[in-house]
């Protein structure tokens, strides 16, 4: 009999936790519906502090953090926030999906008033001139070794540092794109978890609903929903046999990890959850 998947720790049961990020010491959570729009907490779930409540901010599209900064794209545009609720706008885009490397903040803008303001861009983390990298409706971006991976027109593409772009795989609105190698990626989309190497696709799993995905070391983690099999899944890259990490009523929309724990938000109606990485089923 296979080992039973452990139950996750409930760090915050609030309904509507959406995107999740991790800075030096805190979890940063963006919320919708009945949830504060942005709040932080310690990694054990204590010390919850609301940065923006529903009265001060209507909509947070994405949040990204590391040891240096917290960035959000929200009703007030794209910018840096601190935990006291101060917001400094870097760009006026309100619906950007974002990520960072050491030097730049990257964003995708899928819709907008002007077609010249739709695409993928970057802006120095400290502020400055915004540079458009890709034009046209773009979403689901990841940055790795100076390369920008993004989704556009039914294709996952990569933009090299010299500006050249090429297609890596066919997809349909992927939730997350994870880099496995220079020409190797994995992603989640509706009903599918897949990878592609040298443009050769491979199906890893076919849950009815697949959501967020991250890579930590040699392991992929993703959220999926299937009757009686919903929760957080993992798969070693060199042993493509998916297994359930944690079973719970919600699939995992946004996943982050530190050296010891996995953290995730439970789909659109769930809260914030955690599990020691060593306890995967």
């Amino acid at each position: 009999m296979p080992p039973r998947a452990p139950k996750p720790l409930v760090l915050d049961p609030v309904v509507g936790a959406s995107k999740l990020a991790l800075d030096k010491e805190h979890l940063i959570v963006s919320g919708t519906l009945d949830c504060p729009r942005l709040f932080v907490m310690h990694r054990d779930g204590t010390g919850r502090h609301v940065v923006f409540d529903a009265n001060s901010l209507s909509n947070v599209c994405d949040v990204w953090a590391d040891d240096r900064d917290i960035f959000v794209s929200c009703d007030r545009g794209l910018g840096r926030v601190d935990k006291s609720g101060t917001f400094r706008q870097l760009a006026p885009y309100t619906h950007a999906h974002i990520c960072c490397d050491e030097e730049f903040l990257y964003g995708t803008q899928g819709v907008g008033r002007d077609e010249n303001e739709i695409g993928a861009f970057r802006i120095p983390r400290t502020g400055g001139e915004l540079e458009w990298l890709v034009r046209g409706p773009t979403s689901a971006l990841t940055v790795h070794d100076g390369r920008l991976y993004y989704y556009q027109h039914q294709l996952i593409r990569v933009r090299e540092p010299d500006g050249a772009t090429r297609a890596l795989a066919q997809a349909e609105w992927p939730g997350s794109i994870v880099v496995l190698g220079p020409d190797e990626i994995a992603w989640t989309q509706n009903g599918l978890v897949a990878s592609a190497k040298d443009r050769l696709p491979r199906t890893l799993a076919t849950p009815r609903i697949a959501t967020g995905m991250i890579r930590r070391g040699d392991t992929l983690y993703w959220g999926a929903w299937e009757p009686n099999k919903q929760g957080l899944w993992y798969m070693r890259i060199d042993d493509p046999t998916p297994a359930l990490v944690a079973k719970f009523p919600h699939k995992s929309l946004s996943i982050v990890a530190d050296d010891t724990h996995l953290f995730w938000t439970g789909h659109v109606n769930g809260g914030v959850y955690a599990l020691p990485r060593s306890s995967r089923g």
Partner: protein
Amino acid sequence: MASALDTIAHLIVPNVLKLKGAAMLIGAMERRDASAFAQVWQQTGVEHTPQVSAKEKGDWRFGVMSLPKPSAMGEAYMCAFVTKKNDGSVNRYFTLEYDYVLATKTEKTILCEREGSLTKKRGDGSPITGDFQADASAFVDAIADKL
């Protein structure tokens, strides 16, 4: 003649639903990804940056998108895509429409559902407060009562 906003709410967006399916669109909306609808605004020339939200209730999944502010009956504040968790082939489409009551000279909202080429009224809609997330949540509750 139908207004541009009427046509977007009752013809163009439902056509996107037919092409892509509710499960696909709701999956993108859960991640706040509205790029699936970029062509609607680009090709109609209507300036609008939609807000999107998603929710689950019981066996149902909902994706809600804001529409340009209505000014005439038949236009909608927002629309919702609905599918079943267990059956992604179910595609339902609702609108929260502007309505004007001549007898009392008051504005209100009505909940409508698109079925084929027909728009059917499903009763009173949820109020509009201006907070998209709160309004989307109330809209979903109103739809859930009719499912």
